[in-house]
């Protein structure tokens, strides 16, 4: 007991309040350490930018997912919504540069709307978000397949700038994702509604008793999640040049990993989007390292699972000390 207290006293306060974030950064450091000994190309700026570019899609979805998790819920419709957004983007634009702007706006609005509907269903039907968004996921996948059974449409050449373009050496998509993340972080910190997200996630009953409007908070988090999914769909359409009806399938569960690695507690109320950004970066970096080490795709899954188990176990140990 005294030993634990002594250890605790030795840890600086900023590390104690951001333990998970510190943990992710340590893990990133370890991956870099291993990477440096594997290949001298791993530590180059070009490779760093490359990894950042590859993180964009996962980071975008996970930022939205973080919000729903913070509020004590979850969004399992993200995968289908991404597929739908990517199909609509390339299908509606269909190679016509004049349509890019209206379609992008329409897709982002549609994603937000789907999120709002999710929130509305959770509140009015009084069903757990897990079930509502699971059902919504099935519905959206069906709608996507109604629209297109295979790859559909194409995006104009210039649109791929979103995925592969560089401004002043920085990847465009990733820069936008980081900007979005910072905006949401500020919103969570300084907007009353943002802080209420934490209150609701921490203790729904107390939040209700002090008069917080659960509906509004859920609309904010699910709306943001829907927006992020739409943005991911746009990004994927730009990356592949075409929308595919199953392009988002894997993101549903994959989006949870960075959230948790970044220190957001799945039961809600603790964490933040910045940690998620680092969590997503860690996942991409790990895959990048395993690619450098010529590890087959199959073992990459094993490594991914072990990282998750390791990270959450360490984090929980720390929480218990408090």
């Amino acid at each position, binding site marked *: 007991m005294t030993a634990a207290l002594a250890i605790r006293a030795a840890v600086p306060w900023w590390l104690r309040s951001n333990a998970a974030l510190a943990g992710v950064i340590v893990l990133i450091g370890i991956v870099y350490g291993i990477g440096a000994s594997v290949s001298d190309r791993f530590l180059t700026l070009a490779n760093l930018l490359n990894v950042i570019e590859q993180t964009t899609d996962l980071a975008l979805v996970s930022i939205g997912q973080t919000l729903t998790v913070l509020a004590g819920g*979850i969004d399992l419709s993200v995968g289908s919504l991404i597929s739908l957004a990517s199909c609509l983007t390339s299908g509606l634009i269909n190679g016509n540069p004049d349509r890019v702007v209206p379609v992008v706006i329409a897709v982002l609005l549609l994603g937000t709307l789907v999120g709002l509907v999710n929130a509305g*269903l959770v509140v009015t*039907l*009084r*069903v*757990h978000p*897990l*079930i*509502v968004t*699971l*059902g*919504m*996921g*099935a*519905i*959206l*996948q*069906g*709608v996507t*397949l*109604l629209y297109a059974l295979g790859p559909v449409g194409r995006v104009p050449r210039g649109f791929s700038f979103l995925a592969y373009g560089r401004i002043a050496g920085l990847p465009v998509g990733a820069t936008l994702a980081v900007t979005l993340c910072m905006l949401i972080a500020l919103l969570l910190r300084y907007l009353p509604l943002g802080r209420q997200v934490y209150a609701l996630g921490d203790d*729904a*009953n107390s939040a*209700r008793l002090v008069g917080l409007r*659960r509906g509004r908070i859920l609309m904010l988090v699910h709306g943001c999640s829907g927006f992020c999914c739409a943005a991911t769909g746009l990004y994927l359409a730009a990356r592949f040049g075409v929308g595919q009806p199953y392009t988002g399938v894997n993101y549903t*569960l994959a989006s*949870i*990993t960075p959230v*948790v690695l970044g220190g957001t*507690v*799945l*039961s809600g109320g603790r964490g933040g989007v910045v940690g998620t950004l680092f969590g997503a970066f860690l996942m991409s970096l790990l895959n990048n390292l395993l690619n450098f080490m010529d590890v*087959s*795709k*199959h*073992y*990459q*899954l*094993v*490594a*991914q*699972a*072990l990282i*998750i*188990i390791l990270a*959450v*176990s360490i984090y*929980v*140990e720390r*929480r*218990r000390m408090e």
Partner: protein
Amino acid sequence: MSGSAEFARPVGASWQARALLGRYGIALVLPALLGLGGVLSPAFISAGNLSNLLLQFAPLAIVAIGQSFVMIVRGLDLSVASMMATAAVVATSFSGADRDVPGIFAVTAVVAIAVGLLNGFLVTKRRVSPFLATLATMILLQGLRFAYTQGAPSGNVPPLLRVLGSAKLYGIPYNALVLLGLAVVLGIVLHRSAFGRRIFIVGGNPVTGRLFGIRSDLVTIACYLISSALAAVAGLILSGYVGLVDNWVGQGYELDSIVACVVGRVSLSGGRGSILGALTGAAVIVVIANEVLLLGVPIQAQMIIKGVVIVAAAALYSSRETSSG
């Protein structure tokens, strides 16, 4: 979610007509669905189709029973589908002859026990949220499976497993008999044994459980063990039904089994549920899928219908328990 746990209704009141309807209303949905199927298409209520329904029902029902154990102790098991596929890969990893069946059972049992222990350990000893712990196990199993098969599993399912998975005895599939046996045994365990009562106490209120001197960690671990063991059985049966193997046998069963439980009034927040409920929920899912298929509805509409049914069923049957949320 909040008030209902502390102020549970007295036992006597639950026998009022409305409470009965709320509690067993789902059992009325099933006959209604079957009747609807008969009206829509005469082929639906033919003995042959009903027997096929049973055949498809058994694997999902077996997984749903395991899922209900985990859900009652406030958990969730997302690794069941991955466990099923792993069992299926094990089933085809031997020579494909009947003499290997004991070996298959042994290896599958070892894997299932390891998975259940890992899930239970992470959830109880490391306090990892069940969603995440079982998600990690799911990915881990998937990775190991892919690494072992190099992405392209091959081999044959032994004839004995094929019999178990797809053959029928006087029109009753063998797998339904397996299900019946498991349901009866586990029904007694859950609803008629001291251990079962401990499961409900731990799930309903862990603090009470601790005050009673129940070792809640052991109870929870046991539930995860039951879940992965049942998923393994379902995987072997399904591999016998499919006849060949890929890395995705059982895909979607993790979510389907959770939906089956929710439809069958197993509470997502723990402490409430029954084997009969899980079975009914699984039956509703299988019957709806079959009816949609018989109607010749395209795959897209099937998914939309499924989504609507999931949300609607949960809204109908779980509204009371989350009424304060």
